[in-house]
């Protein structure tokens, strides 16, 4: 029944599977719903992107916009199965909010902010596209983004680009605050399993959160909302397995990572101490000083050095 499905989209960096918000949304939904999708990231080859990415190809059907791709996937792989009708309605509303309020600022940060565009976005995208399209396509995407922002947000009484920018960043920060309030302390937006809305929010938030830009006012604002950051990290570790720990499930990740780091530190210290041991035995210094610091560090790992140090 499952026809092989192929997704062409932009690749990723900085710990993300993709830099492009729409591609990321589709990838996230595929992971949430368990759809078997082979992902082809655009790299420096002649199979240049012809239209808008992401594009899903399944047998003979070619679908191009994320909303349509999700509708197609949902027929067989439904991540929204447990949602009530009202929650389904809320999903549409919040997606509209994201597109109206957050997307302009996202586009601005990536494509219009001069420092960001010249030092990060343009080189990255140009490196993924074959020459000579790499000279033309990033510029075209940037112009389209500027056009979109000016046409939708740039009318009077805002008369200059700086005023428009101020307005869209205000809107974006408000939108982030609203999302944070809505998420609260739960793991995903509708309980314990991720749905379409989580895919969209993740797709929009993760690039802001992870990509290292020179001008980062939106990222700084996002970092002040810890539940949204935790939301992105959880999805990355659970579903994309691209960050540090690959064995522990979501909730324990940070604790495990910390424990790992601590034990590594302790091991390093114990190795150092072993080397100094020979010198120490000859000198009149007390090794007990080192013992107490080891005791306070982590539990269980210092038994071997302690036994070695005891006279």
């Amino acid at each position, binding site marked *: 029944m499952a026809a092989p499905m192929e997704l062409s989209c932009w690749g990723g960096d900085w710990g993300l599977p993709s830099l492009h918000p729409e591609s990321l949304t589709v990838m996230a939904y595929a992971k949430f719903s368990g759809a078997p999708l082979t992902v082809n990231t655009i790299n420096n080859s002649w199979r240049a992107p012809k239209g808008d990415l992401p594009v899903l190809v399944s047998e003979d059907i070619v679908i191009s*916009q994320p909303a349509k791709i999700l509708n197609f996937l949902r027929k067989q792989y439904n991540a929204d199965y447990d949602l009530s*009708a*009202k929650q*389904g*309605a*809320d999903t*549409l*509303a*919040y997606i*509209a*909010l994201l*597109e*109206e*309020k957050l997307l302009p600022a996202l586009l601005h940060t990536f494509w219009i902010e001069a420092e960001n565009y010249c030092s990060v976005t343009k080189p990255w995208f140009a490196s993924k596209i074959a020459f000579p399209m790499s000279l033309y396509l990033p510029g075209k995407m940037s112009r*389209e983004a500027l*056009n*979109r922002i000016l*046409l*939708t947000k740039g*009318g*009077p*009484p805002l008369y200059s680009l700086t005023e428009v920018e101020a307005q869209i960043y205000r809107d974006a920060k408000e939108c982030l605050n*609203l*999302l944070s*309030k*809505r998420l*609260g302390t739960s793991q995903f937006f509708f309980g314990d399993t991720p749905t379409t809305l989580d895919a969209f929010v993740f797709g929009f938030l993760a690039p802001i959160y992870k990509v290292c830009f020179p001008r980062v006012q939106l990222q700084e604002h996002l970092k002040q909302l810890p539940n949204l950051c935790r939301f992105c990290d959880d999805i990355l570790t659970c579903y994309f397995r691209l960050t540090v720990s690959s064995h522990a499930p979501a909730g324990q990740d940070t604790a495990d990572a910390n424990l790992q780091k601590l034990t590594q530190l302790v091991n390093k210290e114990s190795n150092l101490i072993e080397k100094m041991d020979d010198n120490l035995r000859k000198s009149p210094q007390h090794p007990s000083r080192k013992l107490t610091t080891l005791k306070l560090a982590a539990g269980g790992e210092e038994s071997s050095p302690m036994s070695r140090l005891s006279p």
Partner: protein
Amino acid sequence: AAEPWPENAALYQQLKEDQILLSDNASSLAVQAFLQMCNLPIRVICRANAEYMSPSGKVPFIHVGNQVVSELGPIVQFVKAKGHSLSDGLDEVQKAEMKAYMELVNNMLLTAELYLQWCDDVTVEEITHPRYGSPYPWPLNRILSYQKQWEVRRKMKAIGWAGKTLEQVLEDVDQCCHALSQRLGTQPYFFNKQPTELDALVFGHLFTILTTQLITDELSEKVKNYSNLTAFCRRIEQQYFEGHEKDSSTVAARSSKRSLLR
């Protein structure tokens, strides 16, 4: 900001009988409904050049004291600064939901109305062009309506709606109405007992869609499929618009527009 609401506050829109279009009428009705819900008196004044008088180029706008504010969002904030608010009783999560649903209506319903008026060739030729330029002599009427059409089409292209067919747009309207209907359920208003600006906005758009006659009835049919939405519109109309004498003229004008639009 502490001044009381003056008696001569006025709302400006285009000419009701001949000129105003579906989307502008919807926005204007939403603002009127909102002000009625806040119990703030307002006179509706129709001017042919209302769009040009407005500070943001969009109708409707209100003239209160010596301030001019246009569009529902800024008007809600302005009214709030004066001390009247409909959404104070909502908690943070509900406020977030309300804002999200208002964006949904703006994103889908308003854009669909604009698409239908300016990008669907039949409607453009038969309804929009004649109406939009009607107060002006030839050739100004044609020039102004082509200019506006070009502007709207550019915007549609930028947000990706230019490639949509009419059926797809109607599908989107259906989806939006479905979402609104699910959210409303059996409650009298979207946030149970008290109307909020979301109710005003939804009323403005749905009532206008239901009572405006276009080339085909497909758009209003989509809304009529959801009985709780039509009941919602009727309830608000009865409660806020039929009790007032000055608004009986708006109700009468609306019904006469049905015959005038053809």
